[in-house]
């Protein structure tokens, strides 16, 4: 985006020169000053990959990405951009301070570990006893067919440390799935986002809960009856999950970790959905049998 804007400005300058050289020379100074107020004099990045944005740009990014991601929830890039544009002011600082208040959180901020398929030894995780955090996590990855590498890098948060907090949250998201056992289907995702919102207060997670409006009616009812109350209750009651040093918890029993954090496992969404599907099929068959009988 930065590059394109620069190019446009250069093109305008060239065109001006081509058309009216004298006038361009006269207006060169004021016009360059005018541009200097906009995005052309971007400060240098604070960390590799950082894109400094002005407040207006951030607001525009938030509105645009927010609307578009509501329309198409599969656009992970837009959700990520929305998360970053709305994390400041306040929210990401609050989350960082929550980390700084905990010895483990401080250690994470100091080490700045990244979760990737290379940083985690996936075959080793598969060899861990069932019920351990690592095994649950890898089983979850295998079942959902996702990889830890699908997380994009943070770009729009100005403070390097806060950018890392957002990155960490994003990379830990898969562990939250493992911790709660919620699947990546839209319904599970929305329930997990509600849990995260209550726990981290990040605005993006709150907005994602509105995606519940796009669920099927039966799913929406189930979300309202079971998963939303579960998410809010557990999200608020549990310790800050951002402070879990997952890399050190891989061999622990997931039930023990849940108890430590104060998270109750929600009813298994996959089981419920399977039961309901079977129920529907059975009813259909009965109906068919009755129809056939008549």
């Amino acid at each position, binding site marked *: 985006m930065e590059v394109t804007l620069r190019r446009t400005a250069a093109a305008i300058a060239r065109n001006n020169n081509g058309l009216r050289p004298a006038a361009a020379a006269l207006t060169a100074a004021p016009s360059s000053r005018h541009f200097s107020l906009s995005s052309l004099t971007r400060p240098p990045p604070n960390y590799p990959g950082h894109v400094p944005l002005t407040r207006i740009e951030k607001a525009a990014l938030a509105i645009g990405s927010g609307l578009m991601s509501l329309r198409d929830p599969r656009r992970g890039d837009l959700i990520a951009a929305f998360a970053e544009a709305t994390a400041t002011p306040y929210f990401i600082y609050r989350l960082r*301070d929550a980390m*700084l*208040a905990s*010895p483990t959180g*401080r250690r994470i901020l*100091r080490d700045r570990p990244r979760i990737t398929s290379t940083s985690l030894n996936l075959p080793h995780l598969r060899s861990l006893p069932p019920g351990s955090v690592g095994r649950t996590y890898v089983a979850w990855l295998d079942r959902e067919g996702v990889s830890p590498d699908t997380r994009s890098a943070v770009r729009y948060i100005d403070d*390097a*440390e806060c950018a890392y907090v957002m990155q960490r949250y994003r990379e830990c998201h898969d562990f939250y799935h493992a911790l709660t056992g919620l699947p990546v289907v839209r319904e599970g995702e929305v329930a997990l986002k509600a849990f995260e919102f209550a726990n981290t207060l990040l605005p993006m997670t709150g907005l994602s809960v509105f995606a519940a409006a796009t669920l099927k009616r039966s799913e929406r009812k189930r979300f309202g009856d079971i998963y939303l109350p579960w998410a809010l209750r557990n999200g608020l009651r549990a310790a800050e999950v951002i402070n879990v040093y997952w890399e050190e918890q891989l061999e622990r029993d997931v039930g023990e970790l849940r108890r430590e954090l104060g998270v109750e496992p929600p009813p298994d969404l996959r089981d419920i959905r399977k039961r309901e599907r079977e129920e529907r099929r059975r009813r259909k068959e009965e109906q068919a049998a009755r129809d056939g009988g008549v």
Partner: protein
Amino acid sequence: MNTAIRRRSAYVCRSCTQSLQRQLRRTYASATAQPDIYDVVCVGGGPAGLSLLTALRANPVTAHLRIALVEAQDLAKTKSWKLPPNKFSNRCSSLTPSSASFLDQIGAWSHLERDRVQAYQEMQVWDGVTGARIEFDWAPGAAPAAGTTIAYMNENLNLTSGLLKRIEELGGVSVFDNAKVEKIAYGEETEDVDLREWPVVHLSGGKQLSARLLVGADGANSPVRSFAGIEARGWDYNRHGVVATLEMEGEGWGGEHLKTAYQRFLPTGPVAMLPLPGNHCTLVWSTTPTNASRLKSLSAKDFIATVNAAFRLSPTDLEYMHTQESGQAEEYSWRLEHTPLDYRTIPQTAVGVQEGTVASFPLKLRHADTYIAERVALVGDAAHTIHPLAGQGLNQGQGDVQSLAKAIEYAVGHGQDIGVTMALEPYASERYAANHLLLGVCDKLHKLYSVGSGPLVPLRSVGLNAVNALGPLKSFFMNQAAGNGIKVF
């Protein structure tokens, strides 16, 4: 015999008759010991008590009064107090220019070791949660003719030692030091005098001093106040003031002639770095008793790091550092990398702490119901105890003393008995409301800034920024603080 003297007293000055009376008494003393009567007995040889005696002795109108000073400590030691030029006591107070001019008026200022007194001209005060800031700096051309000094930082011992030297120079004060006050009670009626309504101070060793006016300058737990039955009301802040003498990396950003005082309001209490001569500073850090005892237990390296952190890092970081038993230095250097700072607005880095100067004392608010009773007056901490956040405790005491000395001068000049409530009333009426206002303001400031989050935090920041932006309002506050503005309080 007594009637003869009384008749004569119309023609002889009072002090002469008194001395004659004493001589006669001594000559014809009967079996019962004659009471030792003083015009003023001051209990407590701190800054307030000593200033009062100096003021009385220095004024020709009150110089003839018979004065006694009672102090539990050895005053000879205080008078000969001496420290090398690179060492400073940890108990320092700020003296406003009006206190300093009063001390000058009574001739004590020149007896202070002036090269140990540090004037400061600017102040930086900010909110540790939001960073909202008020900068008391003199705009070019806006400096008042009376001088740009906001206050002087001075060791309390330098002041008491200077006052003692001045009292010695003036002479005429009976000093009873190393003396414990056993009890204070009313006197008895003898054939000569009726002292049933006069306080008598009983010292250890049997000495008894009868007082026409008993002055309580004996601190927060004043025995004089309890004798007078005056209640002191208030509350404890559940905070301790941690003090220390620090060595800084330099003389301050403004060099030797432009010194700045810094104060940051943290949710646990304000922390202040006040300049002393050279590259020294004195620290006053109000914090919870737990944090205070942790600070006192730290190694010098970790203590310095925590002090530097107090002016730089977020309250969250500080809270964490207070939970550490050691390793603050390392934690500080890590967090400093991630904390954006404007170095000109914070004190220079502390590099050393003078050994044995880290100490703490509990903070409280107390205000006596009244300052005066029949033949009793309270001054200084005996009358009021204030939160140190505005550095006004000692100055309030100086204000009391100035006012009480004036009331005594008036009473003497008009032939009144200096001990009666009527004579003391001007003192109480001049000082009580002023002190009460200042106590209240400091108390509310403490409470306002103890809030770590919630709607009050942005509101107080908006307020502070607004005052900072309003030039005339700010210079009004600065002139008030320096005591050279219009007299409002």
